[in-house]
């Protein structure tokens, strides 16, 4: 199997232009004869399916949801980056490229990132044309904000629901193709295996979740856009159904999985409140523009708060430790996500956490309220306003800016964040790792492509805010429609594949046996309980800080847990019906294998970079220590067998246009 990046020759800035100008094309009459399967209907999948349908391919599109519109892209809050430079503040394609590579701690492929920055501008145009109601200025032009610690305002947004609006745009484009018959939509269908014929991806086995029936679907190529695997931690900001199964099934068929250990832990989520908790809720990063993060200076105060004897309001200013402002005076509360998260962990590990579990810090808006209140009073011409008026005026400003988020916080916690400081803690949010793909977004299995969060390609070791939506849509609207043509132009003489052929029948039988084996265990523990235990191991040993001893232990514990799972899991019902527990079980079974690979990858990477922090590799000040000379590679893992070590393939990263620097936010 081939393993090369297939990056086109030439200058970085002209690679994509040249590629598009010289790639082989597929004529319209041939496009009609070619079948394409798209799995997943998030930003990347819906955009790809819609665009390929528009181009004239026969598209079959699959989602396990009841509607394409429910994909988890919908939950993205903040915004989408694009190098439009509408604000005239010096942005450019190169700057967006540079920021993304630097933000990713120099662990991404230059050419892919540059292409991402190039097409970012087209995404905004496309979304506007589809009717996405982006925020606007009074003059009617598009508004931007600064996001994620960069120095230009390049983030386009639709209140706090940018992901929803962009996904609905893509969903509508997809719906249009469905109504024209160029895309056939399969709702409530979950991909459970990949079918290969002569080494190429030629179809999938999908389970109709309503009836339990297994279906064989053939095509000339298969595109996965199945999202991230953050739920390997059980508790994350991902949706309950987000899973790695489609990606993991292709790994079992020979695809490489790259950089699984790169995990983005988002610093501002609502802390866990109890054992029953099913997921964690993100509070947008934008809150750190006005909120100040702190814990009490003394353990005594922290304990009193944890026990409910004191509240944040009882701690005087001088007894508070605004630890981000103290440690990073230049960026303060606006340091990137990985840095902010780790700092919160350190504060809590030192015993100063402020929620009963010990894992929480304050995010305080009182300074912002005072600051806004005074400026409002001044602009209203109030002389000597009293404290109450200032607070009222300031609260109103905060409400205008963050009202929705505050409301959501209050619904979840039952506490009024206008009065009490918010309580937050980091949570798993995004996974930068994923299936290894080349410049064409093609995996090492010919004819198998992977888009969006499901691939590893653009964010390196850490993703910047507002870049996930950009990547998903770039891949779906503007990259895959070209690169898939390179593959399909060689397939125009390939007749349609017979879904009753031996490879399909064998794959279906494999899936059916696998599901039946799970059902036959008939043990005593629920699927959920195994998932929860896996999550605890992952969070404890593969979370915000990792070390060799812990990772070795984690690998062993995951193996033991997996053995226990296959002995004692209980799944009610049968294959031939709507069976949510069986769906979950198949997904958790895959997480139990991915979790191990995760630990193996984290063990291998003896450096700290982005979303991977190894305690052994830190500076004297406790900051991440990258080791470019030895670890500037993509770790692409080949799964061998459940009981053996996976094989590591290294793709060395070359940085021709960027000088590698240490990130500093001091």
């Amino acid at each position: 199997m081939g393993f090369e990046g297939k990056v086109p020759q030439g200058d970085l800035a002209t690679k994509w232009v040249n590629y598009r100008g010289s790639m082989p094309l597929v004529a319209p009459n041939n496009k009609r004869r070619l079948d394409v399967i798209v799995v997943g209907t998030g930003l990347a999948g819906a955009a790809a399916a819609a665009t390929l349908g528009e181009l004239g391919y026969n598209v079959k599109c699959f989602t396990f949801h009841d509607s394409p519109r429910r994909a988890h892209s919908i939950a993205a809050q903040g915004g989408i980056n694009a190098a439009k430079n509408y604000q005239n503040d010096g942005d450019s394609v190169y700057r967006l490229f540079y920021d993304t590579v630097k933000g990713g701690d120099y662990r991404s492929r230059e050419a892919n990132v540059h292409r991402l920055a190039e097409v970012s501008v087209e995404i905004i145009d496309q979304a506007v044309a589809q009717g996405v109601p982006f925020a606007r200025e009074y003059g009617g032009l598009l508004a931007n904000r600064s996001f994620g610690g960069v120095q230009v305002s390049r983030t386009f947004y639709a209140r706090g629901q940018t992901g929803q609006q962009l996904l609905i745009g893509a969903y509508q484009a997809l719906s249009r193709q469905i109504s024209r018959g160029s895309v056939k939509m399969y709702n409530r269908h979950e991909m459970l295996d990949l079918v290969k014929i002569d080494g190429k991806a030629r179809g999938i086995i999908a389970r109709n979740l309503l009836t339990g029936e297994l279906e064989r679907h053939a095509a000339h190529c298969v595109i996965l856009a199945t999202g991230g695997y953050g739920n390997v931690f059980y508790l994350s900001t991902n949706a309950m159904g987000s899973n790695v199964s489609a990606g993991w099934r292709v790994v079992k068929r020979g695809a490489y999985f790259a950089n699984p250990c790169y995990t983005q832990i988002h610093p501002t989520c609502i802390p866990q409140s109890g054992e029953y908790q099913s997921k964690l809720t993100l509070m947008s990063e934008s809150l750190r523009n006005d909120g100040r993060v702190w814990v009490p200076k003394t353990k005594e105060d922290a304990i009193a708060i944890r026990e409910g004897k004191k509240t944040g309001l009882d701690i005087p200013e001088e007894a508070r430790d605004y630890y981000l402002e103290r440690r990073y005076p230049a960026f303060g509360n606006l340091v990137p996500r990985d840095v902010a998260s780790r700092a919160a962990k350190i504060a809590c590990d030192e015993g100063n956490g402020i929620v009963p579990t010990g894992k929480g810090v304050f995010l305080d808006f009182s300074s912002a309220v005072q600051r806004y209140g005074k400026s409002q009073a001044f602009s209203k011409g109030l002389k000597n306003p009293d404290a109450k008026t200032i607070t009222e005026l300031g609260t109103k400003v905060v409400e205008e800016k963050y009202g929705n988020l505050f409301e959501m916080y209050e619904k979840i916690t039952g506490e009024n964040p206008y009065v009490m400081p918010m309580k937050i803690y980091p949570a798993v949010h995004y996974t930068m790792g994923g299936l290894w793909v080349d410049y064409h977004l093609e995996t090492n299995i010919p004819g198998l492509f992977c888009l969006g969060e499901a691939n590893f390609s653009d964010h390196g070791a850490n993703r910047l805010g507002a870049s996930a939506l950009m990547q998903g849509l770039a891949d779906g609207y503007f990259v895959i429609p070209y690169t898939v043509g390179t593959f399909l132009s060689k397939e125009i003489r390939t007749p349609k594949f017979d879904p009753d052929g031996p490879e399909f029948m064998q794959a279906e039988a494999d899936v059916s046996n696998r599901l039946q084996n799970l059902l036959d265990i008939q043990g005593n523990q629920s699927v959920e309980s195994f998932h929860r235990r896996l999550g605890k191991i992952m969070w404890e040993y593969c979370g915000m800080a990792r070390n060799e001893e812990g990772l070795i232990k984690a690998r062993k514990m995951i193996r033991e847990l997996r053995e226990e799972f296959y002995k004692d899991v209980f799944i009610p019902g049968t294959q031939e019906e709507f069976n949510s527990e069986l769906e979950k079980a198949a997904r958790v079974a895959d997480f139990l294998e991915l979790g191990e690979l995760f630990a193996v990858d984290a063990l291998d990477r003896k450096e700290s970079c982005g979303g991977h922090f190894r305690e052994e590799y830190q500076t004297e000040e406790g900051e991440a220590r990258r080791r470019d000379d030895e670890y500037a590679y993509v770790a692409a893992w080949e799964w061998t067998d459940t009981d053996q070590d996976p094989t590591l393939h290294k793709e060395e990263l070359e940085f021709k246009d960027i000088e590698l620097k240490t990130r500093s936010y001091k």
Partner: protein
Amino acid sequence: MSDMNLTLKVWRQKNNQSKGSLETYKILASEHMSFLEMLDVLNEQLIQEKKEPLAFEHDCREWICGACSMVINGQPHGPQRGTTTCQLHMRQFKDGDTIVVEPFRAKAFPVIKDLVVDRSAFDRIIQSGGFISVNTGQAVDGNSIPIDKDTASAAFDAATCIGCGACVAACPNASAMLFTSAKVSHLNQLPQGKLEAKQRVLNMVSQMDEEGFGLCSNVTACEAECPKEISVENIARMNREYIGASLTSDKFV
């Protein structure tokens, strides 16, 4: 301190063909749980007893995906205004309460199992015209279409619909007018959507009728229960546009 003993009466229905009924369960919950987490606890309890767990739809659990589809004490998504079931927390209830949980009811949303219903009718309404006909790559520069802030904001208000179907579930007529009108309002207000505005409203209403939803009696229960608090002004707008398009469109069908 925060524990609560609850009696749950939950709709159980094996599949589309079988008849369902309300089953009673006792459960110990905490006031900090979300409603769905309380149901998770119920399911864990049922699995421990080797019984079939309750089927219910849920996904993002953060007020946006629109998957949850249950009626709690007669109200879609429960008693709290502007909330989905996942954001409803048990502190909205009292210790000792009896809570009745039923699936969304409408002929056009047939029950699949327990609290899971089929809402694909909504997808078909969008497919009939809930889009702007623009292919990828055809777009002009984003700023070449200025849209005044208020219009963009009004379109956005309509576009926040999460397609959960609470409007249909709340409506005594099972009418889908709020859903359909939210999409018509979103697209027809924007300059990009104006070119197809007449045909869009005609096609979408026609598809909505075909799906077997009831008619709108302006009960406004939809607005009262909408988790995104979408206004019935959108329904008036759709009525206006539909009547106008029917009378003035050049096309006969």
